[in-house]
């Protein structure tokens, strides 16, 4: 545990200089170890699988980084990508958060400048683990500002292995969050540091750090709302100080100016409602600062007069600003809020109005096991941390509490924001554990030394009065000493807290009887409690290692399953993408559900219709409609988009649950949202989604069903779907407008080609028509024969 180490790290006067230096070295050494821990716990994915980029979004980031390293920053800035969102294309430079890409690009450039020939992919794979090590150091700094070195080390160690953060930052998970959590924590650290010191230097750094955060992640709006909230809280509870002004005012001005430099944010930094809170608080802060300034200038009587004047003027200004803001907000259709932010404020918003946000699994509200999975025993410790922050309450610790409360609320709405909660939970758990260990080890140390010094006198506990009286004499001199030298290392709290404690002791020492006794707990109970807490920490470590190794390391493009015969590897995705890149023309368009867009462009280098950057709902709805339409209608939709190949992901053969059939209802919902002829009830039998014999005819005739289950019956003769757990409804059918061109080894990816349109030959038109009607009639007849309908 980091705790005993921390004890030595606190400052002590003259004789403690050596001890102080020793503590500093030990602290630094611990931090290095924590960094190593944070880095190495994230390498399970590389060890168990391979050094490969994970999942979906990271592939896009990887592709952008490749482009950046090949073409340079200016080309990257002006990059118009015609490989995606065909035929619209996408302006990459203006629509990505460039922080991650630029970071990895500069690391790559730097490493190569040192003649270390790392590939771009290697740099991308290991960016996240490197930054989690840095993030845990930033957590140390932040917690140290609030509650001292011990709590800082504890929090850093906890953050290094918190599962929630591991899930987004294993090696290969090359996503914005990887660097953004560091930026988030570091920005908070600089804010708190400025708040504690009142230094303009840190304030400037804070704005720069905020700029980095804006570059990295859309979650920066959390910062620009949380810090104003804290400022407002400080003002309202009467904690205004010039330090608060220095911490906040430069951040708003510089931060907003810098944020507007990021193309993807641009004028949003002043135009959207997410940022308005910061401006409002900025105004309030100035009014309050002005009041305090006037108060210093005037006599109390004059001040009272001025006060009324200021209040009236201030209120007038406030109302004017509020009115303008309300007018601005009301004039925009979504009231100026983006859908994601709105669904945070009104949790039921997304599920009602924006299926595309509600459809993403990481936007679902979490259940209690999610908390236990993602922050584990920290869930038990956080309340203790909250209470520790209130005793005593400082600017920094109130910020911690506010951060935790907002983050825990947001995480309750969207499971994705568990990631923002993780640092807060780590900090508060660190504080809780640290203060608990502090009390327990102090009791142990104090009583052990007593036990050895004057053994029999204390061992019998006797009457409490007598024992305390005897301890008063023996320990009163010691008590004073401990204040100076011995207890000081134990009380590793921030200077401010210690000052406060001293104030308390001083004020109470007027009443001599009460304060003489050093507050301790019984020895044996302390020992057992310490052991229990260590056991709790041990369980946390076990859980984190398990989560890192088993739960969060799967790259999800390579799947494995353990069976009796041994390890089975499913590498179907890369097989399919490789097939596409080798067997299709460079300019062919591939349609698939948006989940696979990024991977197709990055790995197969083919143009896609929609991808994971879900910026155009209509376009996605078009693909959803095509997938939910019958073959002919779908063919027409795809043909109008110049699509040559259609790719579906099918897990029925091997039992891969997140396949397109399971995602299909969302395609229907999103498609139906734009094209009303697609109706969800048509695909449901009595509200149940099913593809077996009970399925509706619409379901059994839609393109997605046909492409997934085409020739499926040939595999086992029965058409048993291992994901859904039953035999499919319609087993034998032919495709009229599509032809199968490739199916991977385990049937997980199936690629179809659109059949070319038949030539229209004059004179044969009639014949053709009659033929087609014949085929359709035979089809219909075949349908009638189906005994299940």
């Amino acid at each position: 545990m980091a705790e005993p180490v921390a004890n030595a790290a606190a400052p002590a006067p003259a004789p403690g200089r050596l001890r102080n230096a020793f503590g500093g070295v030990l602290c630094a050494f611990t931090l290095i170890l924590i960094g190593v821990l944070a880095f190495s716990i994230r390498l399970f994915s590389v060890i168990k699988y391979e050094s490969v980029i994970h999942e979906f979004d990271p592939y896009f980031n990887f592709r952008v980084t490749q482009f950046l390293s090949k073409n340079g920053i200016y080309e990257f800035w002006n990059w118009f990508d015609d490989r995606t969102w065909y035929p619209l294309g996408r302006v990459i430079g203006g629509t990505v958060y460039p922080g991650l890409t630029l970071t990895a690009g500069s690391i790559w450039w730097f490493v190569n400048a040192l003649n270390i020939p790392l590939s771009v992919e290697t740099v991308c794979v290991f960016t996240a683990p490197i930054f989690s090590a840095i993030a845990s150091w930033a957590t140390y700094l932040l917690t140290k500002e609030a509650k001292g070195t011990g709590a800082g080390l504890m929090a850093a160690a906890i953050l290094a292995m918190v599962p929630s953060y591991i899930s987004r930052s294993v090696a290969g998970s090359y996503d914005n969050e990887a660097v953004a959590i560091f930026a988030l924590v570091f920005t908070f650290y600089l804010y708190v540091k400025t708040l504690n010191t009142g230094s303009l230097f840190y304030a400037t750094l804070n704005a720069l750090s905020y700029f980095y955060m804006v570059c990295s992640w859309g979650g920066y709006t959390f910062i620009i709302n949380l810090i104003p909230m804290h400022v407002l809280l400080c003002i309202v509870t009467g904690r205004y100080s010039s330090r608060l002004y220095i911490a906040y005012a430069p951040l708003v001005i510089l931060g907003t100016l810098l944020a507007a430099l990021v193309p993807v944010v641009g004028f949003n930094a002043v135009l959207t409602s997410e940022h308005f809170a910061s401006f409002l608080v900025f105004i309030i802060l100035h009014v309050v600062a002005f009041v305090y300034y006037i108060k210093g200038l005037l006599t109390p009587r004059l001040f009272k007069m001025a006060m009324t004047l200021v209040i009236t003027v201030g209120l007038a200004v406030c109302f004017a600003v509020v009115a303008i803001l309300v007018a601005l907000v009301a004039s925009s259709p979504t009231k100026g809020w983006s859908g994601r932010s709105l669904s945070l404020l009104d949790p039921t918003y997304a599920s009602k109005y924006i299926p595309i946000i509600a459809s993403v699994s990481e936007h679902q509200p979490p259940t209690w096991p999610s908390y236990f999975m993602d922050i584990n025993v920290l869930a038990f410790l956080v309340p203790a941390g909250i209470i520790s922050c209130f005793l005593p309450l400082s600017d920094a610790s109130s910020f911690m509490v506010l951060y935790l409360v907002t983050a825990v609320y947001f995480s309750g709405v969207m499971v994705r924001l568990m990631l923002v909660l993780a640092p807060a939970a780590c900090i508060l758990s660190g504080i809780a554990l640290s203060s608990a260990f502090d009390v327990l080890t102090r009791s142990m140390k104090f009583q052990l030394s007593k036990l050895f010094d004057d053994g029999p006198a204390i061992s019998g506990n006797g009457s409490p009065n007598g024992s305390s009286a005897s301890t008063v004499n023996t320990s009163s001199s010691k008590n004073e000493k401990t204040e100076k030298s011995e207890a000081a290392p134990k009380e590793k709290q921030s200077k401010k807290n210690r000052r406060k404690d001293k104030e308390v002791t001083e004020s109470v020492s007027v009443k001599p009887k009460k304060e003489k006794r050093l507050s301790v707990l019984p020895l044996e109970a302390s020992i057992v409690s310490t052991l229990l807490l260590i056991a709790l920490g041990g369980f946390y470590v076990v859980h984190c290692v398990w989560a890192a190794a088993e739960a969060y390391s799967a790259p999800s493009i390579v799947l494995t399953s353990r069976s009796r015969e041994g390890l089975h590897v499913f590498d179907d995705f890369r097989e399919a993408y490789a097939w596409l890149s080798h067997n299709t023309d460079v300019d062919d368009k591939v349609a698939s559900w948006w989940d696979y867009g990024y991977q197709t462009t990055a790995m197969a280098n083919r143009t896609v219709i929609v991808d994971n950057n879900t910026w155009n709902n209509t376009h996605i709805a078009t693909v959803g409609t095509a997938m939910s339409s019958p073959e002919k209608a779908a063919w027409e939709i795809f043909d109008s988009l110049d699509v040559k190949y259609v790719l579906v992901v099918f897990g029925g053969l091997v039992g891969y649950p997140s396949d397109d059939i399971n995602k299909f209802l969302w395609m229907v919902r999103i498609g139906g949202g734009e094209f009303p002829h697609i109706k969800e009830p048509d695909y449901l039998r009595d509200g149940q989604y099913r593809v077996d014999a009970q399925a509706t005819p619409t379901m059994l005739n839609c393109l997605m069903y046909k492409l997934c289950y085409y020739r499926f019956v040939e595999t086992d003769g029965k058409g048993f779907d291992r994901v859904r757990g039953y035999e499919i409804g319609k087993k034998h059918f032919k495709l009229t407008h599509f032809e199968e061109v490739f199916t991977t080894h385990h049937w997980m990816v199936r690629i179809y080609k659109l059949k070319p349109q038949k030539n229209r030959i004059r004179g044969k038109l009639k014949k053709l028509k009659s033929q087609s009607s014949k085929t359709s009639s035979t089809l219909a007849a075949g349908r009638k024969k189906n005994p299940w309908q």
Partner: protein
Amino acid sequence: SPLILFPCLLTTVLSFPRRSPPPDPHPPIAMAISPRLLLPLLLAAAAASAFAGANDLVGELQSLRSRSPAGVIHLTDTSVTRFLSSPAPRPYSVLVFFDATSLHSKTDLHLPQLRREFALLSASFHANNPDSSDLFFADIEFSESQHSFSQFGVNSLPHVRLIRPEHSRLADSEQMDQSHFSRLADSMVEFVEARTGLEVGPIVRPPLVSRNQMILLGLLFLISIPFGIKRIMEGDTLLHDRKLWMAGALFVYFFSVSGGMYGIIRHTPMFITDREDPNKLVFFYQGSGMQLGAEGFAVGFLYTLVGLMIAVVTHLLVKVESLQTQRFAMLAVMAIGWWAVRKVIYLDNWKTGYGIHTFWPSSWR
């Protein structure tokens, strides 16, 4: 997926009294009339309606609608016969909500809520199509009109049926799917629009506070601002009470970690009844994708409890003077804490099915 599964849980089977008379000591009027009397009455009514023509019925329905709250006409056995058993092509459709006052207390059925939503649907339709006589909204109560319930073949609630102009037999009418209750009035609109081809228009939900109340609140707020600022300047408001902030923070934490937001978004009940044994209540749902309200709050309570106990030991118990008290309290805290953590770990393993294990070097085994 829980979204789809959930509505199925709502249905409860209504029990029809077969031989025994209804328990109600004052049977409704329609039941009091003996079948011998009823038959001629019905015949007369049917004949009358046929002769009087459809226009009279429409006019009557319209006047009934204008007298009913939210435009939902209350039907009884007689009026069902009068308006819905008339010969087939009627000039109107009727959407009927089947209600049972005795089941209002069953929370998992959400009958009162659905009834309110139904009224909202009716009011919105009426507001958007003021003169429409194509579609009427009606409700019918089980204890008053058991005959109609059996005629419609309704034996489970919640139940909504659409009787279109061409339906000649009541049982032919179309039942609204469970899936259409899932999003309340908004999904009911989809059903109505799909089946009748009529435009319902946007649902007009009454605002939580009316306009006058809003103005009043606004005025009160404006008046209170100067006083509030004065109090804040002096530093003696509730806002300066740290205990309040602390309690608030702990409550938000408790509510969030117990997945309370999940309950709000997904409308999950606190508990459900076992499907196999209706007398048994299920508080804990196996499977990590879904949770019930009660289990969430129970675990959230355990989460918070342990933290609070640690805080009490570190900050409060230290200051207690009596060693005995300290010892006893710490023992209790350790025992409860141990039990709570074990319980949560057990519940988590049971619910998610994960087997968390350690990784020892293979040479150690």
